[in-house]
């Protein structure tokens, strides 16, 4: 299994303006088994095809690196789908055992804050979203190699945007190497709880399928590439094989160093993560 990052080198070619016989198309992307073509709303284009890598066309009124964050997210995910793997909108945290724990949530600000808290409190390297997982062996995960980015949640945020005018911000936390495939211990779904105490519980098969569906990145593109039946099977296989836990935070609490330590303690109490 090759790291996805190795597949998305920029070719320097001019991307096509359309794909032949795409199996799915929207105003913003076309996709089929042969490749993926993305159009940004401001007129940029990004194309990925297996064996060809990435080609981009930047609109004249945008900065020269305008598409770089989109290459690392959408391009990375498209390469994953076309390589038979599933992109998940989650951050990965690399524990001191060397294994990754994926952190997901219904809300970006929640999983990003928890991943950041784990990194800040314990010095763990942390990945940007998305990560790409092998459904047949979910202990194998690739990251995009970038420092994690965070959704802007306040007007007062001081971090610079990753793309001109965007609401996603850069951070400088240590990144997880994207040029190697990492072992993965499991997925933790973080949620805002209603009880006074936090709780870590296992997620069963059916709820696991529901969680996986919620966190898949670019599901329409993936379904077009794989077919609906294969995607459904992948949901099932991932839910069966990927250890999944739900961490309910105490009512009214947001992720912070104390909750990061609490989560880590609870994970360790279940065994060496």
């Amino acid at each position, binding site marked *: 299994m090759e790291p996805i990052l190795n597949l998305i080198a920029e070719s320097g070619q001019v991307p096509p303006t359309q794909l032949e016989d795409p199996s799915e198309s*929207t105003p*913003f992307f076309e996709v089929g088994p042969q490749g993926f073509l993305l159009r940004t*709303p401001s007129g940029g284009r990004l194309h990925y095809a297996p064996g060809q890598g990435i080609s981009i066309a930047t609109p004249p009124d945008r900065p020269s690196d305008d598409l770089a964050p989109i290459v690392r997210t959408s391009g990375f*995910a498209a390469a994953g789908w076309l390589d038979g793997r599933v992109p998940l909108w989650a951050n990965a945290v690399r524990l001191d055992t060397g294994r990754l724990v994926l952190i997901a949530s219904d809300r970006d600000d929640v999983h990003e804050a928890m991943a950041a808290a784990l990194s800040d409190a314990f010095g763990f390297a942390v990945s940007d979203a998305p990560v790409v997982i092998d459904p047949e062996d979910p202990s194998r995960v690739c990251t995009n190699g970038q420092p994690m980015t965070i959704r802007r949640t306040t007007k007062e945020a001081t971090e610079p945007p990753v793309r001109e005018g*965007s609401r996603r911000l850069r951070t400088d936390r240590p990144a997880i190497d994207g040029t190697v495939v990492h072992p993965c211990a499991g997925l933790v779904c973080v949620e805002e709880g209603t009880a006074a105490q936090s709780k870590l519980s296992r997620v069963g098969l059916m709820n696991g399928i529901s969680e996986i569906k919620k966190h898949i990145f670019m599901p329409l593109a993936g379904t077009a590439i794989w077919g609906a039946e294969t995607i459904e099977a992948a949901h099932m296989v991932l839910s069966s094989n990927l250890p999944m836990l739900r961490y309910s935070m105490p009512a009214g609490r947001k992720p912070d160093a104390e909750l990061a330590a609490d989560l880590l303690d609870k994970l360790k109490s279940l065994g060496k993560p």
Partner: protein
Amino acid sequence: MTNNTRPATQKGFTWLASYPKSGNTWFRAFLTAYGHKEGDVDINRLAARHGAREGLFERYLAIDGSLLSEAETFIARREIYLLLAETNTTTAPQKVHDANLPLANGKLLFPPEATHATIHLVRHPFDVTVSYAYHLGLAPNFDKCIDYMCNPEFKVDGLIFSQMPQVQSDWSTHTLSWMDMPDTRRVTLRYEDMLADGVHAFERALRVMYPEVEPDRARIERAVEATSFGKLQAQEAAGNFRERPPKAEAFFRSGKAGDWQEHLTPAQCARLAEALAPAMERLGYGPDGSVGPWIDTSSV
């Protein structure tokens, strides 16, 4: 919950359009109760999700929505509304707080071609000011909220709830943008009229939303009873309301008409009345805070 009112072949969105704090959430609660065979409503499971939520668009963009520039979000929204209206026959009503203004390309953000119907909810801007100021955590600084409501360029960034940016504009421009939207089925409901006769108001809305279905009067009455302000307020007090902004002490705070008299100075009212006169006059909203008789002659 059941949805027994929408024909399967119906295309286009139903926009529940309003300036914030004008009865939109109340209307959504009503729709939820009306669609429930027992008339129940859970304020954390309301019908009609936010029409600017990023999750609605990302699937069709294949881009993380927070990577887009503001200008790109408006282009994307319009295109995807058109796409979904053409391909999705089960689209639920969408709550929206944007003004329906032309984008840089001259096309309306909410295109008539993507619109099945518009339920336009309005409230006297004096009361909106007070309610919105509490909602934003500005009260008792009502002047700041008046600045917003009189600013044609006023935008909200949607940072807290993962929404795309929204141009609300000033209250008058916002109101007229929906009242003058061409080629669309619409009803404009005044909050004060909904308070006075909810059954009649909601029945009018249902006729616009579901023109082929006769509204069920008994269900309307039951839904109006289930969604009284006191009951919604009690639900929030007993638990939580996930749509309450962090800076607001309560989402369902007062609910009554004329609350402005307890909060606004004559100078603040005069400022609002002068800046917002065009739409106030159209709607029978007096510069003295009165709510005069009004017939929505332009509604379907």
